[in-house]
Every structure is written in structure tokens, then in C-alpha cells.
């Protein structure tokens, strides 16, 4: 679901010197859509940026979603724009999406959080607490004062089930992930989120010692691309320019990316608005609108392709 929904910032709170949390409620309805722990939403920021953040609040409470964002001075601007949000501000977010599901069952669960990576794990902790399911939490970071939600996470897990390790940024004091994973029961399920190197070491240890690992990486939440057909080339007759149309894109996508504006509407081959004249090549017509006669000279850019190369009157 790629629909957006309007939300209002209800509360802003500084959790650590550089982590700020945001409570969002639906702008028009009492409840937000339900979500499974581990889910994230896309936030459409006022300056046009789109960023993805995990929902860290209790999935049983749909009156609001809570997000928490680490201010990263080196970031591409998303965390700065988030930190600039104020109470009462209205913005759009996506429906929740989830690629980091907590499996039901009795297997012992171990949550491994690296700093701000605790956010999706916190929603999992809420769910397990509600189910009466015991779990452990390993919370890693540089300094304890910079670990967000430590108190809340400890309360959910039970203090005796929480291990906190801060290395102060000293590589020689780094937590021994390998030994930790090795010590876990063989049927343990590890859920981890945090910086890339931490996740890599958890995955490696999991593989080495045969423990199941589920993870969520911060960067690069991309949608799966669907193959649309064979790749081919478009030659623009006016300039001689050659455009490559990849397997996962349409001619319309490639033309648009090259700054060639072809009017279009349905993008499914029924309206005929994107038809263009072709001068040479082997068209593979896939529309449902052009007549056999029209197909001798015209071609729809939204769904039709070509074998090899097609020269368009553009």
C-alpha cells in the first residue's frame, strides 16, 4: 500500500543528547492502521525528502505511532528535517510496511540493539510483554547516556534479562558477539537492528553457530522491482540520442528519465495518450488501443517494447 495518510505531531521529546522522539496521531481519525512489530513508515518531510523510520510504540495502542530519530550531522538531511518538526505540525506518512517480522511461537527470543537500532525491537518488546513471552535484550552503544529507551526496554524485558555494553568508541572494548551468540540456546531466534558492522557480525556468528537471525538495516529500504520485459534501445530521431530501456522499466520511464516528456494517462495500454510515431525498428505492441493499421506507424510507450532497437519520431 503506497497510500499516504495525514498525521499531526502530538509530542516531541528529547530522549538523549541526539535522539528525539515524535508522537504522531492521525489528523482525521481516532486510530492509525494496525501494524506488526518491526514495521516502519515512510515520512514525507516538508522539504520533499522521504525517510523511513521504525515504529517503536506499542502495537496494541493505535491512537498514535511513536518514532525516534538520531540526529546525524553527516546525514543527507532527513534526520535534520525530522528534528525540526514541531508539535502541531501536519505531515504525511505512509501506511506501515514490514520486512522485519517477529515470528510467533515459543522459541527463546534475543533482541540485539545497536543504539538507535532499538526502535523496531522496542515494538517487539511491547508485543512479547503483552503475550507474556520472555525475551532477552542485548543493548550496545558507545555511552549509556546515548542509549534511547533503555529504561522502557528494561522495564519490558525485566532488568535481569537486559545486558548493556558500552565501549566508549574503543575497538579493544568491543562486545564479543561471537561468544554471546554461541552461548544462546540452539533454538534461539535473534532479532537485530543497528549499524551495519554490528549486523554483519551477528549474521556471521549466527551462521557459524547455527542460530536464526532476522535483521533490519537502516539504509536502503527499496521496493522490489518487477521485470517488465526484455531490455531494448530507443533512438530519438531528432537528436540521434540512444536510450537504454532496462528489463525493469518501461519506455515511458526511460523517456521520462531522459527528460523527454511524452503525454500519458493510464500507463496500461488502453487510453492511447502516449502513442508516438516510430520510423524504424521491430516494435512489439502490447497495448489494447491501437488498430492494426495504426500499429504500422504508431507505438505506445507505456506498455509496448521492441526487439533490439526502435527509432522514435521524437
Amino acid at each position, binding site marked *: 500500500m503506497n*497510500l499516504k*495518510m495525514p498525521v499531526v505531531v502530538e509530542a516531541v521529546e528529547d530522549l538523549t543528547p541526539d535522539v528525539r522522539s515524535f508522537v504522531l496521531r492521525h489528523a482525521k481519525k481516532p486510530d492509525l492502521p494496525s501494524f506488526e512489530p518491526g514495521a516502519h513508515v515512510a515520512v514525507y518531510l516538508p522539504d520533499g525528502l522521504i525517510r523511513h523510520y521504525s515504529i517503536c510504540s506499542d502495537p496494541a495502542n493505535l491512537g498514535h505511532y511513536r518514532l525516534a530519530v538520531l540526529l546525524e550531522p553527516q546525514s543527507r538531511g532527513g534526520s535534520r528535517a525530522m528534528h525540526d518538526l514541531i508539535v502541531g505540525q501536519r505531515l504525511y506518512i505512509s501506511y506501515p510496511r514490514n520486512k522485519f517480522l517477529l515470528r510467533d511461537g515459543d522459541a527463546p527470543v534475543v533482541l540485539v540493539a545497536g543504539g538507535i537500532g532499538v526502535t523496531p525491537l522496542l515494538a517487539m518488546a511491547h508485543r512479547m510483554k503483552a503475550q507474556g513471552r520472555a525475551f532477552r535484550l542485548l543493548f550496545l552503544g558507545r555511552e549509556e547516556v546515548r542509549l534511547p529507551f533503555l529504561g522502557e526496554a528494561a522495564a519490558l524485558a525485566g532488568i535481569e534479562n537486559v545486558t548493556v555494553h558500552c565501549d566508549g568508541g574503543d575497538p579493544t572494548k568491543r562486545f564479543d558477539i561471537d561468544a554471546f551468540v554461541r552461548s544462546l540456546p540452539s533454538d534461539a531466534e535473534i532479532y537485530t537492528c543497528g549499524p551495519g558492522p554490528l549486523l554483519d557480525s551477528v549474521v556471521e556468528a549466527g551462521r557459524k553457530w547455527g542460530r536464526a537471525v532476522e535483521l533490519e538495516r537502516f539504509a536502503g529500504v527499496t521496493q522490489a522491482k518487477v521485470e517488465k520485459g526484455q531490455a531494448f534501445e530507443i533512438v530519438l530521431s531528432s537528436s540521434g540520442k540512444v536510450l537504454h530501456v532496462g528489463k525493469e522499466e518501461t519506455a515511458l520511464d526511460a523517456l521520462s528519465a531522459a527528460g523527454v516528456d511524452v503525454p500519458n*494517462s493510464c500507463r496500461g495500454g488502453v487510453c492511447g495518450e502516449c502513442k508516438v510515431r516510430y520510423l524504424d525498428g521491430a516494435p512489439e505492441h502490447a497495448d489494447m488501443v491501437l488498430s492494426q493499421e495504426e500499429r504500422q506507424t504508431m507505438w505506445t510507450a507505456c506498455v509496448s517494447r521492441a526487439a533490439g532497437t526502435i527509432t522514435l519520431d521524437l
Partner: protein
Amino acid sequence: MHWIGRLEHIHIAEEASVEMEELRTGSLLAGKGIDGDRYLSGTGTYSHKPAADRQVTLIEMETLDALKRDHGIDLTPELTRRNLTVTDTPVNHLVGKRFKVGETVLYGGRLNRPCKYLDELLEMDLFNLLLNRSGLNCEIVSGGTIRPGDKIEPI
């Protein structure tokens, strides 16, 4: 042709890609659109190509029922992105005709065509299933307030 249809749901979306919102009463403005909808404010997906018949759109509830019955697809009125969901109304036969929805009068401009944009928005494969039954794009001839339950009648 004699028939009497019924208005079941009224929905608006404040902007392109934003979820629809159900209304208990809709305010139709002649020659403009539905109060609060993206095609009145000019923030719809197709607002850059203005057309009088994009002021209000209709879809048959029977189409949604058929999608469920024949394909197991739950396309709820809220997801269709059409403004008025109607029953017992032969919308495909209203092209070029005036008809009443409650106290208002609409003119059927042209059949709505399915678009890939909806498939991408909902992550559903609806395009082929909605061919020839994707609804009707209308112009508002005479405005007023409409409510679910209102009668729809030919003029």
C-alpha cells in the same frame, strides 16, 4: 430506460496519493467539484490536465462485489479513488446524459479508464479487471448537498 439507483458512499481525497476519507454529507459545487477533494483544489494526479468531467467520479458497488466474488479481491469503496459509490445505477450507460443524484444534477462525460497509477498506489493488480467497469467521470451541472441513501435517477 427506467431505473432508480442509490448513493451508497461519498469519498474525497485531499491530495494525490492520500487515502480517501468517507463523508456523511458531500457538498457538490457546480462546474467545480466536491468540497475538500483533490480535483477541486487542483492537487490530484491528473489535475495538470483539467477536464470538466473530472469534477466527480462514480463507480458501481456491483463492480466491487464482482471483484470479490470472481477474483477474491477486496477493493473497498475507500480504495477505489472514485467519489461516489452507487448501486442499481447503470453508470456505463450515462455517458452523454444528465441524471440526478439527490438534489444535484450530473452530466456523464466519459467512461473512466483504469490506470496503472492505482495499481501502484494499492500494490494490487486491478488494471485488466477494471477494464470497461472502472466508473464514470462527471461534470456537476447543478450543485447541492448529497448524502448516502440519496436516490439516483435519469432525467
